[in-house]
């Protein structure tokens, strides 16, 4: 009887699983298709046209093939915006947020540290504040006016007024983005560090390894996957940073902080050239895909 039941159940289980698969995955696939794949495909189509929002050409968009891509790849402004994006991502996300986030996570793991709750909350605050509020607050703090917070602080040390957003614009936006992003890095690394066995760390210390050696040879290899996953995520989000820079400097002064996301906004919406802006987005998408695959390969993680 039992045998009969078992033999009868065997062929039906995979069938049920097969039937359940579309039900379980269907909604996600549908959502991704509607909200990710379809807009991306439409964006690629627009990139191959001279679609504009204003002017006589707006009434009759033409298929222009790769003309937009040729224009962009020959445009010093666009290439410089890509360079600035690389600079922004490297210093604010890959170096700033990652290093400081890791330090914060390691610090929170220390048993001797008092007030961990307060420290963690303080680190989390910048992430909780909405982007536009954070940007406008910093714009006010760093304003070139004599009465701005930054200039009042400088005044306490006898220094004259400064205008960091005009004099050191890229450094300023990088530092502000680091400030905003540390919390996410800290949370990711804290979770990863939880999985590092204490015994292993104790054993290495017993063997005479220094704190740096423990981190370099024990901790880091064990959390390599989460670190690369974080790098992938932070690279994608930092390349897409728009509001922070737009509200702080609008890409200026001149074009000093015009990273590619700002360039795309200016082209597509301020100057109404949807075709050109879409082509710039497609180029950015391709670069991000290459970068993402590189991270995934380096981390040997399945994403």
């Amino acid at each position, binding site marked *: 009887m039992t045998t009969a039941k078992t033999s009868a159940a065997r062929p039906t289980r995979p069938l049920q699983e097969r039937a359940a698969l579309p039900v379980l995955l269907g909604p996600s696939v549908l959502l991704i298709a509607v909200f990710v794949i379809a807009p991306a495909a439409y964006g690629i189509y627009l990139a191959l046209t*001279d679609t504009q929002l204003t*002017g006589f050409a*707006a009434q009759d968009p033409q298929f222009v093939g790769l003309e937009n891509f040729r224009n962009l790849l020959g445009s010093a402004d666009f290439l410089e915006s890509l360079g600035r994006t690389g600079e922004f991502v490297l210093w604010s996300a890959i170096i700033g947020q990652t290093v400081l986030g890791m330090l914060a996570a390691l610090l929170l793991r220390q048993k001797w540290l008092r007030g961990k709750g307060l420290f963690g909350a303080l680190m989390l605050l910048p992430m909780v504040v909405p982007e536009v509020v954070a940007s406008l607050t910093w714009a006010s703090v760093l304003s070139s006016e004599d009465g701005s917070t930054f200039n009042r602080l400088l005044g306490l040390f006898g220094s004259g007024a400064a205008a960091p957003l005009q004099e050191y614009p890229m450094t300023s936006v990088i530092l502000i983005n680091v400030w905003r992003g540390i919390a996410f890095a800290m949370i990711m690394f804290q979770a990863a560090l939880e999985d590092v066995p204490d015994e292993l760390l104790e054993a290495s210390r017993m063997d005479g390894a220094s704190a740096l050696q423990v981190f370099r040879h024990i901790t880091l290899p064990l959390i390599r996957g989460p670190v690369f996953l974080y790098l992938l995520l932070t690279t994608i989000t930092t390349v897409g940073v728009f509001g922070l820079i737009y509200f702080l*400097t609008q890409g200026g*002064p001149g074009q000093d902080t015009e990273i590619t996301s700002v360039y795309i906004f200016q082209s597509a919406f301020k*100057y*109404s050239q949807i075709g050109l802006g879409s082509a710039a987005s497609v180029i950015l998408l391709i670069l991000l895909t290459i970068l993402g695959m590189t991270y995934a390969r380096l981390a040997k993680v399945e994403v």
Partner: protein
Amino acid sequence: MRRNRVLAAGAAGLLFAGVLTACSDSRAEGPVTVKLLQFQEARADVVKDLIPEFEKAMAEKGQDVKVELVTDILTDDQFRTKITQQFYSGKAPDVVDMGNKNVTGMAGAGYLLKLDKYLHTWDGWDEYYPSVKDGARERNGSYYSLPHEASVQSLFYRKDVLERLGIDTSQPRTWDELIARLKQVRAKTGEAPIVLPAGTAWGDGSWSEGLLPVMAGTGSTLYDDESGKWKLRSKGLSAAFDLYADLVEADLLPVRDLQNPNPWEPTKYQKFPQGTLPVAAQGSWGWKYDWGPEGSAPIKNSRERIGTWDYPALVPGTKPAPVSGGGFGYSVNADAAHPDAAVELAKWLSSGKALAKQLAAVGAVSPREGLSGTAPYKNEPSLLQAEDELKSSIQPPLGDGEDRVSQAVQSATAKIVSGDADGSQAADAFAEEAAELLGSTRVAK
């Protein structure tokens, strides 16, 4: 009997159809709602008070028209971005009050109603100044905006400050003459004495209030109406970019302020009122909108303390002249549900006392004759003087693709301001970028 039933059914059918028709008619004759968009507070405030008067005037004509005022306070650039997308997605209001520099691109895209048939049958249209009509006419000869304001672009100067410093305040004949005076101011105050809008942060102002009026009097053709093409290299353009570079090189332009995200604030709203930056390129709206008692940065006794110069001659053989600075107009959405009522609103707001109230409130110049005796506009001597200048002002030619040219000017002047280019390099960068943005079909060889 059977025949009676058929007749009764027929009569009932007719009666039912009659009732339906009556209902349908009553809907058609019911209140018509027109949505009017204002994006500047001063304009919204004055129009809000005028709307009941318009509704009353229409009711007296037997038309039930209601106006819904949509107030969305934005900067020029924000407004342009937003309204373009509203038009593109079919969500724009029926009537939009906007600067005429926006009209060409939107009319070209088919967003705006052609107003020719309405204007040519309207008595009021004959009273408009020819320069205003020229400025409003699109390349295809049609009108897509009813101008209700005009302006004159001049160099505003702080008479009290320059006199105190012992600087000549008579009309400078050439830019060289003015630069010599500005250098004297700089030597005495140690600060940059003049602001011309430049760079990307000032947005379209760097073009329409900055480079365009500087080069307008040079006699060089920028846009050829006949061929519909832009001439991106000319003696006038080179001279204009050189002027910017000379001003930067001599430390006469406030380059740091021009790189501020809101460059008009430290310059027009702080340093000009304080008197530390005594010369500013400015449209006639500055008398009220910027420095009037209820303006953004009031200057007491502005009539006594501020004077205006025409733009000095930039190239040999030319002379100083006022430059028409464009103005605002009412455009009607091409998809407006009630275009006739929408145009009626635009015409009413552009006439008589309603127009006089708007002009006085925002500090604009009348685009038509016959307003100089209408209160409260008649009590604004600065505006009446500017209206006189409007008649002889230079009308800069504008055409399809002006927004692209504006974009290239912003980038090129930004390079000068940041010290990355001299005048000729900026002129080259402008020509190259504008040609790329306009496409070969819109650029003269």
